[in-house]
C-alpha cells in the first residue's frame, strides 16, 4: 500500500499509522506524548503530531499517531493550518509551563524548547539551549549573563563559548519568564541598575517593563 505524505509516495503496511510511516520515510512530525508502548492507553493527547488530511479520508486535522493508513490517503505535515494549530498548541502548553529553564534538568536538551524555537513562539529563554548548566552557569561565576531573560533562537551562541549573553535577540515579553530571570540575577547579587544598564543596550523598549518587575520582585 502507498500513501502520500507531503506529496511524497510512501510504502506502508495496513495497520500502521501515519506517524510511523512518516518516521520511516524520514519525514519529521513532532510529538510530545507519543510512546509506542502506551499509545493504546494514552492516545493522541498532546495533539502535536496533527497533520492535515488532503484526500482519502475525512478532510481536516487529524492526529497522525492514531490515523491508520488507508488506500489513497494523502496528508500534509506542514500546511499553514497545521503550522498554525501547532503554534497555538505550543502557546497553550507554554501558558501552563513553569519556564524556569535555568533550573531545569533537561535544559539544553529540551524537546519542547526546540519546538518553541521551530514554531517561533515567544517564551523560552536562552538558558533552554545553553549547555552551561552542567559546568556551571555564568551567573554563578559572577558574570552578568542576560540569558535568563532573552529570546532563545541563537542556540546559545555566546554562552556556549563562555561569553555572557548580551540580549541581542531582545528581552522576552513573557513576564513569568522574566520573573525567574530576575530572581536568578538577585540571587547572583546583581542590582537593579546593573541589569537595567546591561539590558538597555539591545532592548531599550523593554527596560520599563523590566524595571517594574524588578521593583515588584524585590519588594517581595
Amino acid at each position, binding site marked *: 500500500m502507498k500513501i502520500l505524505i507531503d506529496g511524497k509516495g510512501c510504502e506502508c503496511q495496513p495497520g500502521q499509522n501515519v506517524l510511523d510511516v512518516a518516521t520511516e520515510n524520514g519525514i519529521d512530525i513532532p510529538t510530545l506524548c507519543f510512546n509506542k508502548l502506551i499509545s493504546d492507553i494514552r492516545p*493522541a*493527547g*498532546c*495533539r502535536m503530531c496533527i497533520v492535515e488530511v488532503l484526500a482519502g479520508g475525512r478532510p481536516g486535522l487529524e*492526529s497522525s499517531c*492514531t490515523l491508520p493508513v488507508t488506500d489513497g490517503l494523502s496528508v500534509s505535515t506542514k500546511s499553514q493550518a497545521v503550522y498554525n*494549530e501547532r503554534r*497555538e*498548541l505550543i502557546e*497553550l502548553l507554554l501558558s501552563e509551563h513553569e519556564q524556569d529553564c535555568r533550573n531545569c534538568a533537561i535544559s539544553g536538551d529540551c524537546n519542547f524548547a526546540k519546538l518553541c524555537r521551530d514554531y517561533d513562539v515567544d517564551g523560552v529563554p536562552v538558558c533552554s539551549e545553553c549547555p552551561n548548566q552542567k559546568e556551571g552557569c555564568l551567573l554563578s561565576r559572577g558574570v552578568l549573563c542576560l540569558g535568563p531573560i532573552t529570546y532563545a533562537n541563537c542556540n546559545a551562541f555566546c554562552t556556549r563559548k563562555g561569553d555572557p549573553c548580551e540580549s541581542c535577540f531582545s528581552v522576552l515579553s513573557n513576564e513569568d519568564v522574566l520573573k525567574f530571570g530576575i530572581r536568578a540575577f538577585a540571587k547572583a547579587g546583581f542590582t537593579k541598575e546593573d541589569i537595567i544598564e546591561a539590558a538597555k543596550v539591545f532592548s531599550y523598549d523593554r527596560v520599563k517593563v523590566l524595571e517594574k518587575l524588578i521593583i515588584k520582585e524585590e519588594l517581595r
Partner: protein
Amino acid sequence: MSIKTIEDLDEMAKIGMKNLESNRPKIIFGQATCGIAAGANKLVDFTKEYLGYLQETGIDPEIVSVGCIGMCFAEPIVDIQLPGKPRITYENVDANKMKRIIDEHLLNQRLVREYAMGQLSEELSEVEHGRLKYSWTYEAAPSLKELPFLSRQVRIALRNCGIIDPESIEQYVARGGYRSAFKALKYLKPQGVIDEVKGSGLRGRGGAGFTTGLKWQFARNAEGDQKYVICNADEGDPGAYMDRGILEGDPHSVIEGMLIGGYAIGATVGYVYIRAEYPLAIKRLKKAIERAKEYNILGENIMGSDFSFDLKILEGAGAFVCGEETALIASIEGKRGEPKPRPPFPANSGLFKKPSNVNNVETWANVPMVLEKGARWFQNIGTEKSKGTKVFSLVGKIQRSGLVEIPMGTKMKDIIYDIGGGMQKGRTFKAVQTGGPSGGCIPAKHLDVEVDYENLDALGSIVGSGGMVAMDEDTCMVDIARYFLDFCAEESCGQCTPCRVGTTRMLGILNRISQGGGSLKDVELLKRLSTQVRDGSLCALGGTSPNPIMTTMDYFMDEYEQHILNKKCPASVCAALFRTPCQDTCPAGTDVPAHLQLIAEKRFGEAYQLQREDNPFPAVCGRVCDHPCEARCQRGMLDESVSVMAMHRYCADKVFEGKAGYMPATSMLEPTGNKVAVVGGGPSGLTAAYFLKRLGHEVTIYEKESELGGMLNWGIPPYRLPRDVLKREIQMILDLGIDVELETAVGKDIKFDDLMEEYDGIYLGIGAQKDVPLNLENEDLPQVLNGMELLRKMNLGEEVDIGDRLLVIGGGNVSVDVARTAKRLGCKKVIVAYRREELDMPAYPEEISEAKKEGIEFYFLVSPERIIKEDGKATGVVFRKMQMDEFTRWGRRKPVPVEYETVTIMADNIVTAIGQQVEDTFYEKSEMVINYRHRIDVDKYTMETSMPKVFAGGDAVLGPATLIEAVAHGKNAARQMDIKLVGRDTLSELQEKTPYEYSMEIPDNEHKIQRATLQTIPPKERENNFNEVVMCLDDECAIRESKRCLRCDIIEEEDLL
C-alpha cells in the same frame, strides 16, 4: 406468563386497555421528577389523607402515577377520569385546589372550570393501536389537542408519556407496544430491519445526527463473536431532559427499541448507561426490565423466537464527557471516561473491543414506531435531510416551558411564540440557546430558521440533544459564553492539550471581560483560540466547546463591546459591571434604589438632588419618561414592578411644595477656564450644558426659538407636562450660571465657523422635528396637516383651524397628543387610525386609555391607501383593512392587507403623525459626516463627531429618541468632552463630592404588595382646559410604594466582597 404468539400480546393489550379506561374513577398524578419537584408527592399524600375522610361517601378512586406529559409550566398536573369519560387535566394544582376538585368533580361530577386546562378526549400521539377516543366529551373544556402547546406537536418518541402508567407493561402493550419487536423477531430478517430503519432516514437524536440505519449496518457488518447495543442515557447537556422524560414516562419504548436493534445487529447483550442523577428513571427502567423478563420479552428465546437478549443497567457517576460514545464505553468498562480517537469506531471495536452500537434514548424510543408504521410514514415527517420529529426541552424565560415533540423543520419562531407562548412577563426575546455546551445562541434575526440538523449547523449551533433555552434582556451573552466555557473547562477530561488548556485560557479571558478588565485584543485572541481548539481537539467535547463563544461573538458583539469599552453589563448580570438592573437600564444611570430609599426615609430634598446628580429633569421625567427601568425591575418577577416614574414625580412635587427638608446644594467643580457652546436648547442640550457647567466650564446655549425646552416645550401638551414644572427645572439649570442666546439659529444668525473659532468644545443637540410623509396623492392639500407642526402650534397657543371632525393617522405619542389636544380645543370628533392592533401602539398605554376616556375614537388594523379629494379639498381617507399575520421574528405579528376590504373615514382635517425625521440643517454643508439616515455620525462611546472638538447627541444622532435617551446623551457628551478638555474623568469626582447616606438594610418585603395606581382627574373636568391629568400619589401611597423596592443594590454590593 410468557408471550409466544400475537394472540398472547392481544390478550395483554386487552388487560392494559381495560386498565387505561377502567370503570373506577381515577385520579392521575404526573409524577416525573419535574412533577415531584413542583410538589406532586405532597399532593398525593394530601389526596390520600383527604380521601380517607371521605370514606363514607363510598367513593373509591384509583390513584395512578404517570410520567410527564411535557407541560412542565403547568406542574403539578392532576387528571381526573370518571368511568367512560375523557380525562380532565387540571394545572398548577395545590392542596386547596385539590380539595375542590375532589369535592366537585370526583364526588359531584362537576367540572372545576377555573382550574381545568383541557380534556384528553382524543389521541395526542401517533400510535396506531390503542388510540384514545371518547364518544362523550365535556363541553366546557377544550381538547388538549387544541391547546397551542400541544396542537403543533407530533408525538412519536413521547407517544405514551403522561398517558400510561410507566410501570405497567400491559398498558404499554395496549398502546401497540412490543408489536414491532414481535414482528421483527418473527417475520423480518435482521437485514430487513436495518433496511427499514435506513429507509426511514432516522438520524441519531443525541447530537451528531448520524444516520441510525447506517450505524447499525456497520455494526452488523463488523466481525465479532459478541456484539453489544448500548443506550446512551447519560443526558448531560444542561437544559435538556427529554431522555429523562422518556425513561420516566415510557421506559418500555426504549427497551423495545434496543431489543429490535440488538436483533438487527446481532447483539445479545444491551447496556443502558444512565446518569445516577436520575434515580427515578433508573427505578422505573429497572422495574420495566423485570416486567419484560417476566413475560419473556427479554431473556432467552424471546417471544418464541430463537433470539436471546439481555439488558443491563449501568449507572454513570457524573461526568459530562461520558456522553461521548468512546468515553461512555470506557466508563462501562470501568475506566475513567476518557474519549478515544476514532477510528477505530465502536462499530468495529467498541465495548470490550467488540463491535458495539451506541444510540441515545430518544433514538431507541423512535425505533418501534418506525417498524410499526413503516419507513415511508416516517419519511413523510420532517424535512428533506432530517426526517421525523425531535423532542426539544423548551426552557428558560419562556411562558410555557416543557418537552415538545415537533416535526423537523418547524420554524423557531413558531416554537417560541406559538408553542411556548412567547417570553415571560412580556419581556423581549433575545436569543435561544440550542444544543447545550456544544451548541450556540441563535438571535432574534434568525428566528425564521426551520429547525433541523443542517439549518442549525449553518447558524453555528447544533440541534444536539434538544435543549432550547430562551433568553431575554436579563440574560448577558458574555455570561452565557462564560457559563458554558466554565462547564467545558470543568468537564474536560484533560487528555488533550487544546481542550484542557485552551478552554481554561478562554475562560480566563472571558472572566477578565466580565470583570471589566477586557480589551479589544481579547476578542481577537478569543476568536483565534476558538478556531484552534475547535480544529485541534481530540473529541467532540473539546471540538464544539468554542461554539457558544463563536455564536455569541457573531451575533452579540455589541454586548462584548459594552463590557470591554463601556465597562457595563447591559443585562445586569456580570457582578463587577453593574449595580442594579434599574440603574443600568436607565440611560442616564439614575440611582433608583437610593432615590427610593431616601423617599422612604422622607428625605425628599436629598432624594431630589441625588437624582439630579445624573439627570437635571427629575420632575419632568416623573411625568413623561418612558421608564425603561420599570420593565427590568426585579420586583416585576415577584408581583409588579415598582412605579419608579411616579416616585420621581412625587419626590419632585414635594420639593416644589417646599417640603424638601434638607437639600444639598448642586456640587460644582472649580472653573477650568474652558469655553464651550451648546447648540440647541432641548433636553439633551440643556443636560449637556448642566453637566459642563458643573464640571467648571463656561457654557453658552444657542437656541433658535424664543424659549428653551425644545420638544419638551412644544412637543408635549401641557396637560401631560405643566409648563411651570418644565420652566422651574430649566431655571434651576440656568441658575448655575449658564449664558443663553435665544432666537439665534446657528448657520443663519451666527456662523458655525465662528463658533468653532471661539469655543473649546461644541455640543450639537439639535432635534428631529420633521414629519415623515405618508407618500400618498393629495397629501399637499391644505386640509392634510402635519402632526408635529400642528402639535407645536397648539402647544404654543397659536390659532389653529381643525374643524369639527379630525382624523389622526398614526399610533405614536404624537398622534395621541394631537388627538387629545384637539379634543381640548373643542374639536367634536377625533379619530385615531392605526395599522396594527392596540397593543402594538408605540404610544404609552396609559395615554391611550386616557384618550379613550376623553372620548377619542380608535380604529385599528387600517392602513391609509388614498386621500379623497372633493371640490379641491381633502375630505377623507380610504383605508385598507389589515389583519394580523404570523409572528415576525421580533415577536410581533405582522399586519397584512385584507383583499377587497376598505374603510372610508371622512373628516374635515387629516393629520399625519407616523414618525419624525431630523431636519436638514447647517451641518450638512460642513465637513461633518452625516449618515444615510440624515443623522450625524458619532462614536457610540465617546459621542465625538468626525470634526475635532465637536460632539453630538440626542435626536440629531438617534432620530426621534425618548427624553431619557436625550438626557443620557447630553450627560455622556459632557463627560467625554470634559475628558478631552481636562484629560481625566472629573465627572466621577464631581459625583463623589456629595455623599448620600441611607439605610443599607435588606427590607423584608418579598411578599405581595399592591403597586400604587396613579389617579387621574375625571374626563369631564378635562374639557376646554390644559390642566394636568395625572395626579400625584398621596403620601401614604407613595411611601408604601417606595418601600416596595427589593434593594437589589445591597445584595449585589455584598457579593462583590
